[in-house]
């Protein structure tokens, strides 16, 4: 049998302290608000340079210069193959009816699909660029469709809305556009 004490007393309580820290951490994790989206870290930064061909026959394509013409607007990232994009169509139409300019970027989409989508769900866009390889999407830190960005007159990204726009989001977008005007 041995005589020495194994360790000082406080170290014996160390495991319990670590465990309590763990419990506190996961309790936070269990009850945190469900924030499962990847937000862009480009807010407040200028749009990158890009030139996209037209995605639909009756609207011009999109370049960075089109988005830095002094007028704030919405930049909507969508795709014809994306179901939530159809869901947000009435809200985009409502924003458009208020006189808000909306530019579109169609992700990995064929012209005929885009045309069919717009014919079916309405076309609130003044310009639509075709982003076949997610160049613009990756350039502005967007990670899915649909997403909607508020762009100010200088071409700076001011706000990102992730997921479809629901009726309750319209007021906030309007607000953000107003801020972008200043």
């Amino acid at each position, binding site marked *: 049998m*041995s005589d020495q004490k194994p360790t000082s*007393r406080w170290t014996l309580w160390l495991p319990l302290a670590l*465990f309590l820290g763990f419990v506190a951490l996961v309790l936070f994790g*269990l009850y945190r608000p469900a924030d499962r989206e990847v937000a862009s870290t480009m807010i407040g930064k200028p749009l990158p340079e890009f030139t996209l061909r037209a995605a639909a026959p009756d609207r011009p394509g999109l370049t960075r210069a089109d988005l830095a013409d002094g007028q704030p607007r919405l930049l909507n990232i969508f795709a014809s193959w994306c179901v939530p994009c159809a869901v947000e169509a009435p809200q985009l139409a409502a924003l458009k009816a208020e006189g808000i300019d909306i530019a579109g970027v169609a992700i990995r989409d064929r012209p005929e699909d885009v045309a069919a989508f717009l014919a079916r769900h309405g076309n609130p866009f003044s310009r639509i660029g075709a982003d076949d390889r997610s160049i613009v999407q990756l350039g502005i830190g967007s990670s899915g469709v649909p997403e909607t960005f508020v762009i100010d007159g200088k071409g700076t990204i001011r706000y990102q809305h992730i997921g479809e726009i629901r009726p309750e989001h319209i007021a906030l977008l309007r607000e953000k556009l107003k801020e972008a005007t200043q």
Partner: protein
Amino acid sequence: MIAEFGLAALWLAAALAALQLIAGALALTPRGGTLGGIVRPVAMVQGVLVALSFAALVVLFAQTDLSVELVAKNSHSMKPLIYKISGTWGNHEGSMLLWVMIMGLSGCFVAAVERRLPELTMLATLAGQAFVSLGFYAFLLLSSNPFTRLPSPAIEGAGLNPLLQDPGLAFHPPPLYIGYVGLSVAFSFAIGALVTREVGPAFARAMRPWVLGAWIFLTLGITAGSYWAYYELGWGGWWFWDPVENASLMPWLAATALLHSVSVLAARNALRAWTVMLGVVAFSMSMVGTFLVRSGILTSVHAFAVDPERGSFILGLLALNIGGALVLFGLRAASVTEGERFSAASREGALVFNNVMLSAILGIVLVGTLYPLLAEALGAKVSVGPPYFNPVSAIFAVPMLMVLAVGPLLRWRRDSLARIRPLIAIPAVLLLGVLIWAGSQAVGLLPALGLALSAALGVASLLPLKGRKLRQVKLPVWGMVTAHFGIAVALLGMASDAAFTTERLVAVQPGDTVEVGPWQVQLQRIEPVAGPNWTALRGDLAVSYKGGAVAELHPAARTFWAPPNETNEAALKTRWNGQLYAVLGQETSGGRWQLRLWWKPFVPMIWYGGILIALGGLLALLGRLASDLKRLVARDKIAYRRSRQGR
């Protein structure tokens, strides 16, 4: 009737668990009297009852009794019988019942067989086991009753997902739970020993078979899971440091450490408090892993919804069991002395090194897994992945593996490195030689270290057999040698895959030939095939190794229609020195097909190694059980003789 019977058996089992806890706890007090006498029988009956309850649920699933909510939600009358049965534990409630059943049966077994420990320690152990079980019973009966009837029977069950009907998927939970529950028994022994302060070799010997058994199952579980990910995901990777994988690795790391410290305690009566601590940690990690996976707390974007209620319940159990055990540890461990002394250059010294390093790796995996959650609490999102885990864990794994080569050659208590120097000269030279060679091949640092360590360890692990008559070598020694050799084998596979894999991504049309490593692969045709609930486009590949005999491979892209889904079925061609891995991708322009090909030298060694490690555990377990049995018989004989002499 069957559902009601199952529920009644479950309530009764829960009541007996409560009785087991109370009687066991009271028997430890001075006024306990004869109350202790009922604990063992109660534990046995409890085990039988919960097994009956589980059997009832299996019958309900086998019969597809759609008046039971759980069956209606998770089964379907058209499923093959085997998947109806596996559906019993393919859901939250059923898997909890499976867990508590395995636990009950283990308790039953311990109560019936274990006679080495002082009776009070046994009572405390069984009371501890009852305490842990009671939490699960409460969970089942109060919030996840598997036997709830529907107001009116469902017309048809909801679960007919063909993807869930995979033998690997259906039958992997039971072994995993056996692993977890084995650690819960070790945990209960640790609690029992802490309560009565009887931490010694007898305690270690009682605990060892449970730790070994659990460890074997955990090893097999991780090995199988890794292989499943490898062939099913279609990208040729076998370990991603995904939170869910880490959740399965952590109990294994703790169990591996525990396994070794238990050996020290059993053989030399040293490392007492440390072993008890590891007993608590190993089971904690099982519960932490279960919690992390079940609560969905760590899965990232676009994941399952977090279920706070269910998560909270498991967290509550976790806090109660582990928190309680750690309080007990804080109170009692100071009076548990560390035991016998030993010098640095000794078997114990090497095992302490192994333990400390394994614990450090465990710490790193835990921190890396939880860190994204911590970062989110501080308001940011980070990812922690292979570029972090690989090098950081290697800092501890590399020295550990080097000591592993030497440790088994050292004698207990006191030894000198000078004595074994001639023995370890060969592995040392191998280590350096391979390292220099790998350096000249421009493989990365970690793969080079892996290859060198694998070569050195492969030889060193066999050295304990040197100079012995192989027939007289005891089973546990065979077990140790096999498991350590298995580590060398697995390491070879891992390092070789990282260092030498060749990848080819090509778009080909029928008739084209592609070279990948030493292989020639020709796409002969693409043809449609129909399965029971899918159609597929199948590629017919003719493959030949270095111009040798031609073999056929059939990677396929399957389309399921209920629910609509597409999967890639990889095709593998295994040789002794590696695996050819082929995946058929999409059609590209001009009648060409995307083909992903990998030549992965020695990659199957990863899983052969895993199997060898588990086999080593099995040999050791058999050896221990055999000697336990012998001791038991001998003791009975003595007792018998004494009783005759006394007469």
